[in-house]
């Protein structure tokens, strides 16, 4: 083994694979400690999107009268709220992960990318719990449960890729500039308004629609929602674009991470 020489890209990925067990241990740790010493435990996974749905349906379903594409607004918003809650939790967690694991980074060697990647994946457990509840909400509102719901785990993939891409980029930037920590919540909030969580994809302002569609969350959330609702088909080209943008962003941030990770232990 050579120490001190930058590994080539292939080695870098091989190294990640060699440490896959640590990756899963860190995911397991994050999941395990998330609801430790909480009263309600894993029901928080459901309570968060559920509470948001209630508030939104009062506010936007009734007051603002947003078009919910032929299903009750509750179902309409919850279907997008589940993947959105995942993003809202996992993206900041991943972006702060290097900082919060600084002791590991300054004391042990392992491929650093494991940290933001495992943090992003650890939110997936909550996602599945919350997704399961969707079925009951649909039954309650007499919305026929679709077989296309089975596509949800597939749609989670680009969502994970996109979340990890942002997480890797921001976490490595965060090591150097602590300002990032304060920017993230703000960024998430903006993202929520730029993505079809409250409203449907068709309500994106027409003039900017093309540009806004490059936000991968548009295509991803739209696919999740369309798979759940019986009233609409999945917009595959839009989803395809989201996947492509996610993968491209992932590759860019992987390159950035690869270039900066040598310094982590020295400046963290």
């Amino acid at each position: 083994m050579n120490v001190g020489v930058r590994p080539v890209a292939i080695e870098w990925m091989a190294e990640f694979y060699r440490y896959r067990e640590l990756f899963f241990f860190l995911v397991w740790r994050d999941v395990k400690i998330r609801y430790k010493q909480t009263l309600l435990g894993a029901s928080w996974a459901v309570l968060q999107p559920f509470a948001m749905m209630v508030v939104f349906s009062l506010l936007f379903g009734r007051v603002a009268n947003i078009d919910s594409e032929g299903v009750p607004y509750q179902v309409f918003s919850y279907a997008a709220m589940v993947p959105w809650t995942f993003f809202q939790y996992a993206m900041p967690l991943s972006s702060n992960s290097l900082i919060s694991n600084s002791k590991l980074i300054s004391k042990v060697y392992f491929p650093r990318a494991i940290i933001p990647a495992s943090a992003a994946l650890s939110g997936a457990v909550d996602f599945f719990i919350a997704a399961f509840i969707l079925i009951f909400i649909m039954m309650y509102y007499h919305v026929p449960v679709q077989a296309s719901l089975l596509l949800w785990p597939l749609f989670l993939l680009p969502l994970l890729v996109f979340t990890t891409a942002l997480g890797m980029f921001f976490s490595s930037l965060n090591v150097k500039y602590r300002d990032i920590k304060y920017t993230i919540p703000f960024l998430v909030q903006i993202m929520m308004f730029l993505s079809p969580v409250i409203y449907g994809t068709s309500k994106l302002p027409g003039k900017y629609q093309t540009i806004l569609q490059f936000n991968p969350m548009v295509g991803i959330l739209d696919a999740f929602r369309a798979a759940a609702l019986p009233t609409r088909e999945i917009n595959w080209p839009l989803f395809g674009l989201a996947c492509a943008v996610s993968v491209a962003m992932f590759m860019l941030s992987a390159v950035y991470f690869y270039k900066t990770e040598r310094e982590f232990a020295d400046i963290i």
Partner: protein
Amino acid sequence: MTKAIRIEHITKRYVIGTMKHETMLREAILKVVTLKRRRREEQAILALNDLSFDVEQGEVVGIIGRNGAGKSTLLKVLSRITYPTSGRIKVRGRVASLIEVGTGFHDELSGRENIYLNGSILGMKKKEIDARIDQIIDFAGVEKFVDTPIKRYSSGMRLRLGFAVAAHMDPDVLFVDEVLAVGDADFQKKCLTAMDELRSGGRTVLFVSHNMAAIENLCPRTVWIDAGRLRMDGPTDKVIAAYLATFSESQRTGYDLEHAPNRGGNGMIRYTRLDFLDAEGQPTHVFRSGEPFRARFHYRVNERIRDPHFGMMIHSDLGTRVCTVSTWHAAYHIPNVEPGEGELELVIDDLFLQPNRYFLSLFVDSTGQRFDYLENCIAIDVEESNAYDNQGRGLHPRWGLVYMPSRWSVSVPERKAAER
């Protein structure tokens, strides 16, 4: 023999200054926006400076050097935590490095869960941990609490658990940093035994420590690093002797501390001079067991400080801390010190040290901060005297580091009258 570790011209440069500035995004943006290349006084430190040496397979090598000499940086570079600025290193075989015990422990997880987490962080496979978990629990002595969250553990239990995991790694090459400096004597012994087993198992070990006794026990060969460079490499006894000799400058009664190297603390206050005095207040360089010890410290205050504690630590030549004396220990409270020059005098009525060489470290600190720190800056040789028993018998390095003036009353069985 094959080389297990090959270190070739390693240099590690740390730039101080940039860390502070560039960690604010504002600074970085300002630099771009104003297009101004403000010249920062870049201060670079060469933590490692063109260092090269080889280690054969199965060798156990000690690494010694003063604080800041680059020992820990070397270990970090070897374990791939940080990268060298230039140079290369080749390590053959599976590497494990122990820079801290219990890295990654999480308070909320149970002992068992933490064994898995810590083990995998140290590079063990789950299968290996499965196979050794009972041994690990046994070694740590935490059977009863293995399913309790470790936030309920005592610090000793945590430490034992951490070391237990580390001791059950199965590396070809092991890097160890000073982890044995903590824990009670019993535990330290356990650790040393575990290290010894590693050695006899043919593992290559690099061991960084301040504890000369531990180095002498474990390592036949020692490398002495000074200011990032290799100062000496050879048989442990020779290297340690040469290393310790640099601390001593006997025959001197006074020491100028103004330009002392390797000084710590934030500099709000600095010791400038130290003079040793005899009982009559005359300069001296002779220290004898059981006689008074007097020292006068001169200091300069650069910034107004509150509540300083002035003090001195005495270490044995093997690095064992013998005692600490300070104004704080003596409950002598100094509320405020204004900038300027000052003096203080320390009197120890009876120096209860056995004849030997000792090292003095001077410090001024306060709660949470350290103003000045001079580690092992002065060596003194304590000579024997007849203070103890009027024969000079009880005063000898072999009896320990300190002597305790003691009184005995003895009753012995007497021969019975009938037997007379």
